């Protein structure tokens, strides 16, 4: 009883064959033997290029001095415990900032996207906020808050530089995170909003149950990139005299005039950010695959 007489592009059937359709005949098995030549060429060229670079650097006249100054094994081992302690603080601050930024940015995003004439002040606030804090260098905010506010000795307010440093970072990054959230919300198809409304969901319910979960999935890679950038900016707090990894490395350096402790800090940062970067790559690839499969219209 198929009355939808043939449309001009009947071959769309083949393209969209979804699951749940009668099983088609199995295609012939994929060719198993694999062509290794490109892989081998890749490995070979990488080894040659980087090997040559290492060889040239190693032969350079200055190299032993550089090595002593930056990659002195004994100095690295000696400074490691302190720098690791400091890095632990970096991680804690990082975690606190991620949560604070995530929540505050969500609030700002809701201010920004909820509709209704009475909510106009919130909307204006969110717009001005994002414009202002996105235009401010994080360093400037950190100095302003971290040194400035404790110096005021305001009664009832915490006077710890660390606390105000975290506040500064949160205020600054929330501006970016708000824009990321918002782009994720914009990318959710309008039909989803119409469906939520027609089911009787209020604006907030529609956000919570229908829009935000999808928006969040849309922007997870972008949020992770932001988290990576944040991890590095946490180190700026060292200028407030907070004993994070960079500060500890600096203390060691000022005692020994050897920079290897900085290398320890650098390696610790890389060890945490590189896996995150790979995770972003993986999520991005997965999303693209899902889009290509054309899950939703």
């Amino acid at each position, binding site marked *: 009883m*198929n009355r939808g007489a043939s449309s001009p592009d*009947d071959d769309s*059937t083949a393209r969209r064959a979804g*699951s749940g359709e009668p099983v088609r005949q199995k295609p012939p098995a994929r060719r198993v033997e694999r062509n290794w030549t490109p892989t081998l060429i890749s490995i070979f060229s990488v080894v040659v290029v980087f090997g040559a670079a290492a060889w040239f650097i190693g032969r350079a006249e200055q190299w032993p001095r550089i090595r002593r100054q930056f990659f002195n094994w004994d100095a690295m081992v000696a400074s490691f415990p302190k720098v690791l302690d400091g890095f632990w603080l970096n991680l804690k601050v990082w975690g606190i900032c991620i949560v604070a930024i995530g929540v505050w940015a969500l609030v700002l995003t809701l201010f920004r996207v909820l509709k209704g004439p009475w909510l106009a002040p919130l909307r204006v606030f969110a717009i001005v906020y994002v414009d202002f804090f996105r235009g401010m260098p994080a360093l400037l905010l950190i100095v302003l808050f971290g040194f400035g506010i404790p110096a005021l000795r305001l009664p009832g307010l915490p006077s710890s530089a660390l606390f105000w440093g975290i506040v500064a970072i949160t205020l600054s990054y929330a501006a970016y995170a708000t824009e990321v959230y918002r782009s994720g919300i914009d990318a959710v*198809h309008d039909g989803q909003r119409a469906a939520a409304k027609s089911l*009787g969901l209020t604006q907030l319910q529609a956000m919570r149950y229908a829009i935000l979960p999808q928006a969040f999935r849309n922007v997870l890679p972008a949020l992770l990139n932001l988290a990576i950038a944040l991890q590095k900016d946490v180190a700026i707090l060292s200028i407030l005299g907070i004993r994070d990894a960079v500060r500890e490395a600096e203390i060691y350096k000022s005692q020994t005039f050897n920079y290897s402790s900085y290398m320890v800090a650098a390696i610790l940062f890389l060890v945490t950010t590189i896996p995150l970067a790979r995770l972003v790559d993986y999520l991005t690839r997965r999303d693209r695959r899902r889009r290509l499969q054309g899950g939703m*219209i």
Partner: protein
Amino acid sequence: MPRILVEQLTKYYGDKLVLDGIDLSISAHEVVALIGASGSGKSTLLRCINRLVDFDAGRILLDGIPIDDESFGANGLYRRIGIVFQSFNLFPHLSVLQNITLAPRKVHGVPRREANEAARALLAMFGMADCVAQYPEQLSGGQQQRVAIIRSLATNPDVLLLDEVTGALDPELIGEVLKIIRDLKDKGMTMVIVTHEMGFARDVSDRVCFLEGGRILEESPPRELFSRPRHPRTQKFLERIIAAGRL
């Protein structure tokens, strides 16, 4: 008293007059088909009826009560009038069961167990019991649309609005969706159906309205309208449909 009464409904999008004084009366258990060229205002009319969009003049009554009356509360109207869209609009991050129970649970406060049972019963009634735990992207278009229809039935609406529900489907999947609509008609559901499936409109509807430029130009029982259209614009439209092989 008609279940739905539309009087002199007028709606602008910006400066553009989209609905130009629509009058339409729909009794309980009646099935009305809306046909007309693209842009004639069919979707907009449906969206006005369940308040997805606001209108500029005229009024719409449900059982004699204006649809913006306070007695409906925040979401009472959406419980009484369901709508299904061309693009399904299932929530992709929720399973079939969660899609169906979302409104009963979160909007109407039905306890989870009860809502789940009701949803399973509905799915079984329409032969979709197997899909309970699946996610929309795992389903075919026809299955997705059937789930969307069931989702709109989960709050027991009195009226169902269907906006080209087969428009995004491959021809071989259309039948299974039309069958559900026929079942609903047999159960006495009041429906307003926007469709390009003229054969289906002729079979299932009690009355067909032809829209053009935001007006209902002609309104009569399907046999009459399809075999002896009175208005020259209707004749033209049907000729084009027949030429395109869709009747």
